[in-house]
C-alpha cells in the first residue's frame, strides 16, 4: 500500500513541475527570432569591407570562442583546471603494477592500431577548425578516448612502456596551458616595447591598434591568426586532463 501512495505522489509532483516548466519555456518566442547581438556576430565575422571588427574565420562559432568572447573561454579553462585538481586531491599513494592480465591478444593489437588513427583524427579536427566544424574542445575529447581505449585494454603494468605515465601526463597538460598563456601575453609585451595600443588576446589589427597575428599565407589560403595555435593548446589541455582523471580512477585498492 505504501508503494502505491508513493508512486501516485511522484506522478503528481512530475505533473506539477512540468506544468510550471512549460509555462516558463513557452515564454520564448517561436523559433525564427535571433538576438541582435547574434546578428552582429554573424554579419561581421568574415566581412571584407569592415576589417575593423572582423575575426578572419568563416566559422562563426570558432570566431566567437577565441576572438569575440576570448576571456570567457580563458576563465572556463581555469574552471576545468580546478576540477582536475579536485579529482587529483583524493587519490594519494601509488598502486602496485602487475604485468599480467588485461584483455586478449586481438583486443590489444586492435587497440594499438586504432590509437594512431584516433589521434590523427583529433589533430585534423582541431587544425581545420576555421573552415569546418571543430575546435579545441572537440579534439581534446576525442584524444582522451584514444588514451582511454589503451588504458582499458592493456593491463596497468604495460603502461610505462607505452609512455603513458602520470607525471608525463601532468607535464603535457602544463605545456598546453603555457601555450595558451603565452599567446595571451604577447600583444601586451609588444605594446610595452613599441608604445602603441594593443589588447591582450587580440587577433586582428584594428585602425587604432596595429598588432595582428599572420592571417593569410600567400594570397588566398587562411592561416588562422591567433585561433589555430591557441586551439592546439586547448586540445592538449582538455585531452590530458581527461586522461589524468581516468588514470586516477583505476587505481586498484586492496579489496578489489
Amino acid at each position, binding site marked *: 500500500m505504501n508503494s502505491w501512495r508513493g508512486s501516485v505522489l511522484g506522478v503528481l509532483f512530475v505533473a506539477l513541475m512540468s506544468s510550471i516548466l512549460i509555462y516558463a519555456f513557452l515564454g520564448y518566442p517561436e523559433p525564427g527570432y535571433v538576438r541582435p547581438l547574434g546578428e552582429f556576430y554573424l554579419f561581421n565575422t568574415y566581412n571584407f569591407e569592415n576589417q575593423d571588427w572582423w575575426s578572419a574565420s568563416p566559422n562563426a562559432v570558432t570566431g566567437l570562442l577565441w576572438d569575440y568572447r576570448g576571456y570567457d573561454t580563458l576563465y572556463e579553462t581555469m574552471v576545468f583546471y580546478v576540477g582536475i585538481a579536485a579529482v587529483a586531491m583524493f587519490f594519494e599513494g601509488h598502486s602496485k603494477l602487475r604485468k599480467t592480465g588485461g584483455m586478449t591478444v586481438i583486443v590489444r593489437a586492435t587497440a594499438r592500431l586504432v590509437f594512431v588513427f584516433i589521434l590523427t583524427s583529433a589533430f585534423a579536427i582541431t587544425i581545420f577548425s576555421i573552415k569546418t566544424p571543430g575546435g579545441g574542445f572537440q579534439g581534446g575529447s576525442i584524444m582522451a578516448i584514444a588514451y582511454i581505449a589503451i588504458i*582499458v585494454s592493456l593491463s596497468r603494468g604495460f603502461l610505462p612502456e607505452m609512455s603513458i605515465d602520470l607525471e608525463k601526463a601532468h607535464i603535457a597538460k602544463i605545456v598546453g596551458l603555457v601555450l595558451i598563456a603565452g599567446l595571451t601575453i604577447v600583444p601586451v609585451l609588444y605594446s610595452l616595447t613599441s608604445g602603441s595600443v594593443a589588447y591582450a588576446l587580440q587577433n586582428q589589427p584594428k585602425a587604432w591598434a596595429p598588432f595582428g597575428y599572420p592571417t593569410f599565407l600567400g594570397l588566398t589560403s587562411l592561416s588562422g591568426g591567433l585561433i589555430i595555435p591557441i586551439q592546439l593548446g586547448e586540445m592538449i589541455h582538455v585531452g590530458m586532463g581527461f586522461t589524468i582523471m581516468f588514470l586516477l580512477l583505476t587505481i586498484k585498492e586492496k579489496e578489489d
Partner: protein
Amino acid sequence: MIEMIELVIDLLLAFCVVLTAAIVYTKDLLLAVILAGAEGVLVATVFYLLLAPDIALVQVAAGVGISTAFFIVGLRKIGRREE
C-alpha cells in the same frame, strides 16, 4: 505548417522522454548507465538535425564515450548492481 524535419525531431524527443522514465524507474544500475549512453546518441542526432555540427561532435565524444567509461569504473567500487 509542420515540415518533415519537425516530425522527426518530435519523435526523437518523445523517445528521449520514454528513456528518461525508464532510467528513473529501474533498479539495476548497470542498465541505467547503458540507457544513459543510448540517450546521449539520440540527443546528438537531434543536435545534428537542428544544424549544430560542433555540438554533435562534443556530445558524442564526451557524453557517450568518456562519461560511460567514468560511470562504469565508478560502479566497480560501489555495491555493483542492485539499487
